[in-house]
C-alpha cells in the first residue's frame, strides 16, 4: 500500500463492483510477508513467512490442495492449521487473484518461486477462477514486455547478439551479464541501476562506458559518460502505456517540455539513423 497507494482503494480490496457491492466486506485479504507491514495489518490473514522460505510455503499449499496431510507443526514458520485455512479460503473464493512483488522473485530461489506459484494458481483453477499479477513498479513495465513480446516473442532479457532473439533469464539478463563482466557498453534508459543493482554489478557499470537517457541527476548519471536528457512522458509528452493488468492507456501531455529538450522517441529515431549510417 506504500508503493502503490491507490491500488487497494481503486482496484483490488476496497473497490465496490457489480459482484462486490460492499467492497472490502465482500473480500478476503491474505498477506504473505515476513514483516508486519501496514498492508498486513489490514489483512484478514497474515502469513508471516520466514525470509527465503516462500518456496516451502507454496509447496505446502500445493500439497494441501492435492489432499495430502502435512506431518509437521509449522512450514516456513507458519502453523499448518493456518495453511489449511488459507487453502480452503482460496478454494472457496469465487474469483481469486495473487498480486506478487519482488519478494517472490528476488529472495532465495528467484524465478523458481514464481514458477511454483504459477503451478499453484493453475491447480487452484480446478476449483475456482484464480489469477496472478505482478505489481509493476514503474508505469510502463508491462508496456515494454508487451512491445518486446510482439516484436521478438519474448518479454524481456532478449539477446540479439547471434542475429536472432534468444531468451534465457540467468544467462541473458542484465544483472547476470554484468556480474560475469561480459558487457562492454551499457545504455540505461529512464531507470536507475546505479541505485538498485547489486554492488558487484554497479562496480562493472563503473568500469565500462555508460550512456544515460535520463531527465534527472541520479546515482546512475553520476557514473555515466554521456547523459541525454529527455522530456517526461505522461507530463510533457504523450504516448501509450500498459497498466499492470494489460490495459493500454493513452498518456496525456499536460505542459510543454523545457525549450530544446527532445522526447525519448525522437532521440532513438535520430540514434537509429546514425547507427544505420555507421554500420
Amino acid at each position, binding site marked *: 500500500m506504500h508503493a502503490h497507494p491507490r491500488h487497494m482503494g481503486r482496484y483490488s480490496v476496497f473497490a465496490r463492483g457489480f459482484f462486490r457491492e460492499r467492497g472490502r466486506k465482500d473480500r478476503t485479504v491474505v498477506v504473505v510477508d515476513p514483516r508486519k507491514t501496514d498492508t498486513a495489518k489490514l489483512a484478514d490473514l497474515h502469513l508471516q513467512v520466514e525470509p527465503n522460505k516462500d518456496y516451502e510455503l507454496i509447496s505446502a499449499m500445493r500439497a494441501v490442495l492435492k489432499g495430502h496431510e502435512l506431518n509437521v507443526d509449522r512450514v516456513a514458520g507458519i502453523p499448518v492449521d493456518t495453511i489449511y485455512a488459507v487453502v480452503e479460503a482460496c478454494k472457496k473464493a469465487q474469483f481469486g487473484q495473487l498480486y506478487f512483488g519482488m519478494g517472490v522473485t528476488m529472495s532465495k530461489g528467484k524465478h523458481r518461486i514464481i514458477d511454483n506459484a504459477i503451478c499453484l494458481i493453475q491447480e487452484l483453477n480446478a476449483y475456482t477462477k484464480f489469477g496472478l499479477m505482478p505489481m509493476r513498479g514503474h508505469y510502463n513495465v508491462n508496456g515494454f514486455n508487451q512491445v518486446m513480446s510482439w516484436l521478438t516473442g519474448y518479454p524481456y532479457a532478449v539477446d540479439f547478439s547471434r542475429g536472432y532473439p534468444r531468451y534465457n533469464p540467468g544467462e541473458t539478463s542484465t544483472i547476470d551479464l554484468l556480474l560475469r563482466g561480459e558487457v562492454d557498453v551499457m545504455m540505461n534508459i529512464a531507470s536507475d541501476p546505479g541505485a538498485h543493482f547489486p554492488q558487484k554489478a554497479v562496480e562493472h557499470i563503473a568500469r565500462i562506458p555508460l550512456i544515460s537517457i535520463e531527465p534527472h541527476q541520479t546515482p546512475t548519471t553520476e557514473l555515466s559518460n554521456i547523459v541525454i536528457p529527455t522530456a517526461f512522458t505522461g507530463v510533457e509528452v504523450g504516448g501509450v502505456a500498459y497498466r499492470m493488468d494489460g490495459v493500454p492507456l493513452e498518456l496525456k501531455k499536460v505542459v510543454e517540455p523545457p525549450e530544446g529538450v527532445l522526447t525519448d522517441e525522437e*532521440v532513438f529515431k535520430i540514434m537509429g539513423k546514425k547507427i544505420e549510417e555507421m554500420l
Partner: protein
Amino acid sequence: MVKVVKNVVCPFCGCLCDDLEILVEDGHIVGTKNACRIGHAKFMHFEGSVRYTEPLIREDKKEDFKKTDYDRAIEEAARLLVESKLPVLYGFSSISCEAQREAIMIGERIGAVVDNTATI
C-alpha cells in the same frame, strides 16, 4: 488563470490511475487532484534533484561533465554502441511504448541485449 486538465493518466506506478486532474497556470503545474502522494510528487517535480536540460558528455568518468548538443551526444552514443562487442540496453519502464519500439529496433540492429526492469 488556473486551467484544469481532466482525466490525466498518472505516469508513476503500474496502477496508471486515469482520473487525475492537473492544475496548470502559465504553462506550469501548480497542483493535482485525486493523485496519491507519489503521483503528486511526480507531477509537481518534487524529487529535489537536478533536472538536466542539455546533454552532457565526458571521456573519463573521473572528469567533470561538459555541456554539448544533442547531435554530438547522440552521435557519440551511437558510435560507442556500434563499436562495442556486447552492449546492453536496460531500463525502458518509464518511457512510452512508441519510444520502446524504436529502442528495441536499435538493439536488434546492433546485436545488443535488450532488457527492462522486470528482470530484477
